């Protein structure tokens, strides 16, 4: 064989793996908020929710790949490799993030946690949704942990336009209603927090 630079190749490989992981993370903003947990041992994982419901967690395989001929490889630049990896990362991120929303949808449909009538997005629908969910606070009323809104870019644009069209009166009404909901949510939060204690 012709002398090779295996240790340098190994470093490249290591580097590209790190890059792939970072790219996937960058492209899965929703999933990344949850945080990554490694399973260091074992072949099964189960968890108990805050409501003490036990669930077995299934592992889902996420994969992507590309194939190249020897000729293509011989002419491949570092930049082109990075681009290929980015494509794979995009593919994997799509599978991961898509999988999360698919699971979420299944759960939402199962529990019936849908805004009645499933109305199109509007300030009213948003407030209705806010009323339906549990909201925690960072100790004080001023610091609600508001949920993240995930929407298609087109819908996001539409929402922005909707907001821009709102009159000052409508905005004040919206803020007032939101404040009322959050006040109520804060009371619920305090009641919940008061339950976090040792009893006899």
């Amino acid at each position, binding site marked *: 064989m012709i002398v090779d630079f295996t240790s340098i190749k190994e470093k490249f490989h290591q580097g590209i793996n*790190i890059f792939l*992981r970072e790219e996937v993370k960058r492209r899965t903003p929703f999933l990344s908020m949850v945080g990554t947990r490694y399973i*260091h*041992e074992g072949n099964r994982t189960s968890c108990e929710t805050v409501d*003490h419901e*036990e669930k077995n967690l299934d592992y889902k395989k996420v994969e992507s790949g590309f194939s190249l001929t020897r000729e293509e490889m011989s002419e491949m630049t570092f930049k082109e490799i990075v681009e290929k990896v980015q494509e794979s990362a995009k593919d994997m991120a799509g599978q991961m993030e898509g999988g999360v929303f698919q699971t979420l949808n299944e759960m939402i449909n199962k529990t019936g946690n849908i805004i009645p009538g499933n109305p199109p997005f509007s300030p009213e629908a948003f407030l209705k949704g806010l009323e339906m969910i549990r909201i925690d606070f960072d100790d004080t009323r001023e610091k609600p942990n508001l949920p993240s809104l995930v929407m298609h870019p087109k819908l996001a644009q539409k929402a922005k336009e909707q907001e821009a069209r709102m009159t000052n009166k409508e905005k004040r009404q919206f803020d007032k209603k939101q404040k009322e909901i959050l006040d109520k949510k804060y009371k619920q939060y305090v009641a919940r927090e008061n339950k976090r204690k040792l009893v006899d």
Partner: protein
Amino acid sequence: MSLEKTKENWLIKLIKLFRDYTANQVFNSSEKEGANPFLERTIENWLMSVNELGYQMPFSQLLLNEGYSVLHQSKHTAFEQGKDIIALDKKGIPCAFQLKGGNITNARWRAEVKVEVEELIDYKIVHPSVDKDKKHRSYLVTNGELDETVRLAIDNLNSGKWKDAPLIVITRGELLNKFVKLSSNFIPRKVSDYKSFLDLYFSDGRELIDEKQYTNFIKSVLRLNEQNLSKEERRRNITTAILFTSYIISKFKKKDNHIAIIQTLTLLCAYIFALVEKHNLNNKYWLNSFKILWKEIMLTGQFLQEEINQGGLIKLVTSIWDGELGSYRKHLASSYLFAYKIAQLIEGDTNWKDIATNEFFLKLKETLRIWGEASLFSFILVFLYVNKSSAKGDLAELFKPLYTPIEAIIKFNGRKSEVGMLSPYYNITTAIKRKFGLLEEPIDENFARRSFMIKPLIDILARYGKRKELEGYWREITYIEQEDFTPDELWRHFLWRCDIGENKSRFPKQSESWKELAKDAKKIDLNLIPKSIQKHSYFLPFFLLVYPHRINTNYIKFLDEAIQKVS
């Protein structure tokens, strides 16, 4: 064919070639089928480089293998009357061995060795298992050579003054042959086994052992996963594992790196336990070997204590980097010391209490630091030790070693944290590398809002009736998921990493009944504790220190119980 395979084949061919050329030239033992000159050279290198302490443990194992019962191994104190090892041979004849390191010149013979040999021969063996009236055989063992004049002197004495109890001498050649013969029991199946052994053997003796590499290697020596081996073969594999480990830890011995010695021997004991539990080995095939290892662990613990007592924690500074790294080194020293003292306590050794003095505690002050969840077990050890000793003092101070880690978990892994402390799957070296940005690959795992150590800490506080304190923490505790891992079979507890088992996580109840909590904290599920640990509970402090990822509330409660049982 993969590059690795090609390499393997190439190396196997080279080994064979080397073997063919060198047979009958290097050692007598090479005459036998399957001998391995690489291995022999390594063993020779090892034997020539150690002192008497360095080969005491493998020599004891060698005796066991030859049918002796080893009764005593020296702690190298002044009261042992020249007898480093006391054993009974197959026929029950008492034998006393004096071990020496290096060549015995005429000058050395006269100044040092002869006096000790006279004690060896003249003084009767005092040991409960030895009949005082029975004559004993005396052996002088050295990994060096004897000067011709010394040999002549011994011959003269053997035919004169010592005629009734002549001295038997074992020197390097004979020792080497014995070690090589026993070690040859292990024929590496993969070139990577050789590579692992050589990597471990030539590693820097000042660091900790690479647990993954060592356990992969020793698993292969023990042939843990192979079925259909006879019990005798299992026994021989244990012997071989001890010998290879002796070669590996010789690097640590040379540097007086007591912590790495204990760490490595703990890993070996754990793998022997795995073998015993997996293949239902009867005591006669392994227990004596384990006892030899255990004595070595405890002897090393004693050396560590002596080093700390003589100001080792102050003298440890060897470079400008110890301003940063010294605290991690102190943490390890303190942790291993407390594990050793608790092991002594459980074993019933009355010396367990000898560091419970203000003077000694002052030397250990502020030596523990929090660098990850794995570091928190040391705080539990300190609590258990101080609680049991008479040095309790102020009650608030007594429980501080438990409050500190629980507060650290709440602070670093609680609801307001973003990344969290490293889980017990990450060791101290990784923690240091992470802190100083030296990791080859970043850790992108997130540890916030979960903890492996919080449940054991809650339960131990509950066992000691600390309701008020737990009430103060409870709100924050309810935000942290409690994690643990349970291997499917008990023998798998001893594996460094276990493929089959369940990871569980659960949130504590938001409104928890103190009564229930205190009741559960008292319960221990013995079905989840391997029999070897139940029978040899004194091993547990070292096991959990070296395997922090095996810590769970059941083990901690069992450890507490084992300590409480000691009167």
